[in-house]
């Protein structure tokens, strides 16, 4: 299956500030009672967006002006905690196509990349500049350029960083590795045959 070459992501952005935003917060465990990922988007950040009675709490994702934003901004260690792919799936199904944060937890970063959702880092100052720009004009277009490794917004620009293996996979359209892994299956069988514990 041919995958899109993701060289840039352009769209409006929304800032969800904070450090150590964990995957339980992104998608609370009770919404994982499902056998498909469909429909997870509506439960994104559920407990910080809604009261027990379902009414909305103040949250950037609830603000009308940020509806339709496709780039999420956040702080350090975004996506820490549980390995649940439900977290990046919920973001993606909600319409998020890339995350810019000060840093990412390892498993979340891997899961997101495999879904074709770039996770790029930028300095705190630069994220604050982007956040200020979209706060002033929520319709401002933010463009993440994975080739030039920069983000442009409201006439400004800032450097971004991304793990090279992830960047390579995204821009060359090989972010879902299944095809390559299947190609390597005979070699894997050979390695396994040399390992005593893996014999049938």
């Amino acid at each position, binding site marked *: 299956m041919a995958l899109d070459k993701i060289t840039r992501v352009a769209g409006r952005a929304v800032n969800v500030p*904070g*450090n*150590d935003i*964990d995957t*339980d*917060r992104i998608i*609370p*465990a*009770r919404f*994982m*009672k*499902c*056998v*498909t*990922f469909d429909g997870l988007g509506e439960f994104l950040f559920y*407990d*910080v967006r809604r009261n*027990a009675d379902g009414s909305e709490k103040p949250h950037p994702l609830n603000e009308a002006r940020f509806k339709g934003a496709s780039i999420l901004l956040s702080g*350090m*260690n975004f996506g*820490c*905690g*549980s*390995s*649940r*792919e*439900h977290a*990046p799936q919920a973001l993606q199904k909600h319409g998020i196509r890339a995350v810019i944060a000060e*840093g990412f*937890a*390892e*498993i979340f970063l*891997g*899961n997101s990349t*495999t*879904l074709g959702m770039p996770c790029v880092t930028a300095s705190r100052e630069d994220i604050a500049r982007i956040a200020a720009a979209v706060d002033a004009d929520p319709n401002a277009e933010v463009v993440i350029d994975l080739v030039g490794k920069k983000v442009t917004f409201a006439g400004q620009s800032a450097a971004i960083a991304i793990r*090279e*293996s*992830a960047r*390579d*996979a995204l821009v*060359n359209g*090989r972010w*879902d*590795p*299944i095809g*390559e*892994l*299947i190609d*390597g*299956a005979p*070699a*894997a069988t050979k*390695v*396994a045959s040399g*390992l*005593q*514990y*893996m014999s*049938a």
Partner: protein
Amino acid sequence: MPKTLFEKVWDAHSVRTLANGQTQLLVGTHLIHEVTSPQAFGMMRDLGLKVAMPHRTFATVDHIVPTDQVSEPYADPLADAMIKELRRSCKEFGITFFDRSTGKQGIVHIVGPEQGITQPGTTIACGDSHTSTHGAFGAIAFGIGTTQIRDVLATQTMALGRLKVRRIEVNGKLKPGVYAKDVILHIIASLGVNGGTGYAYEYAGEVFDRFSMEERMTVCNMSIEGGARAGYVNPDETTFSYLKGRPYSPKGAAWDAAVERWRAVASDPGCTYDDVVRIDGADIAPTVTWGINPGQGVPITGTIPDPTKAATADERSSIEEALAYMKLKPGAPIKGTRIDVAFLGSCTNGRLSDFQEVARFIKGKRVAPGVKAIAVPGSQGVGLICAELGIDKVFRDAGFEWRAAGCSMCLAMNPDKLIGDQLCASSSNRNFKGRQGSPTGRTILMSPIMVAAAAITGSVADAREVFGVSAN
């Protein structure tokens, strides 16, 4: 050239380098459970793929199983459907399933070691971040996402970048009343919740040399809470004697050959680490959390941090956010904080030794009025031995509810949940907002003995005082 265990295991399982520079890594052992695997099986069916090595995947149910109901259909129809879905998938793809009917069911990270499936020098993957637990045996064990579960099912491999290795040495002796849980809470509080990003942690030193396998598992379990995707302890005689005679352990001549291989897989003297951290075991106190991530911990004798005294603006705002959620007062002692619920269990502290140790101290004591205390063995096997030893009775007599095996109130996907803003003294691994099932529920992480002390006094307490320890 001398190598670390991580390097040896990684190299032995490297299939090839992928186009993006990652490694196609052979996954020797794949563990699955009912919550993160159904979508992966769905993808397999959609793509028309077969499971490459069905004999190397093992399944059980843990996340969503009720612990107060053991016969199906379960009261929660969604839970019932997910469990039936796993049963169907295992049958369809020829995967061994430790279902409740086998008597071998339990939390996946307790079942693997118990069955002898978890072995030194192997690679292990599971769709659960606490897969790092298995590193206690000198395995390299990773938590993975659902798409990667598909990859492992279809090819027995996954794409992964190599990790750096940080050796964390804990030397000297732990003080009485200080347990493995305190060691890892102390490590996370010292190095931070993202301090381990990009690393595998190698735990070593005199304290780890003396630790039992179950204590090593408790520490490795929470590696991910410090940001490290994997954590391990080099295998030694303690490891081998734990594994000897287990159902999936090698037998006879194969056992001797295996032990020889396992010995050789340990990090070589003189190998190079990307980083080394040394901790004096005597500096570690019984540790409890006060905040909303596992790094926000203090000694039981300490006070709740004051945001106005924070060193940085960042720290200040994170303390403020945590205290607002936890409804705790800055500067107050953490000891004496009233609790509503006590939870003893989870993949961190739901093993035989956890219940045995607590039983020694709660015999003849009673859970404080108004406190709901539940004890949940991590596996049917643990539950069975506890019953044989009369440990379940000690807990029941003390006023604990004694439950069937599962993850239970660690992540509260089953009916075991906090209500409203209840505060729970918990032997589990995460104190995130809403983690224990109520969006406003509060969690204080601590060792099992500290959970017992909290249950009995009705507030966060120093177990050394409550039980007149000299424990361990």
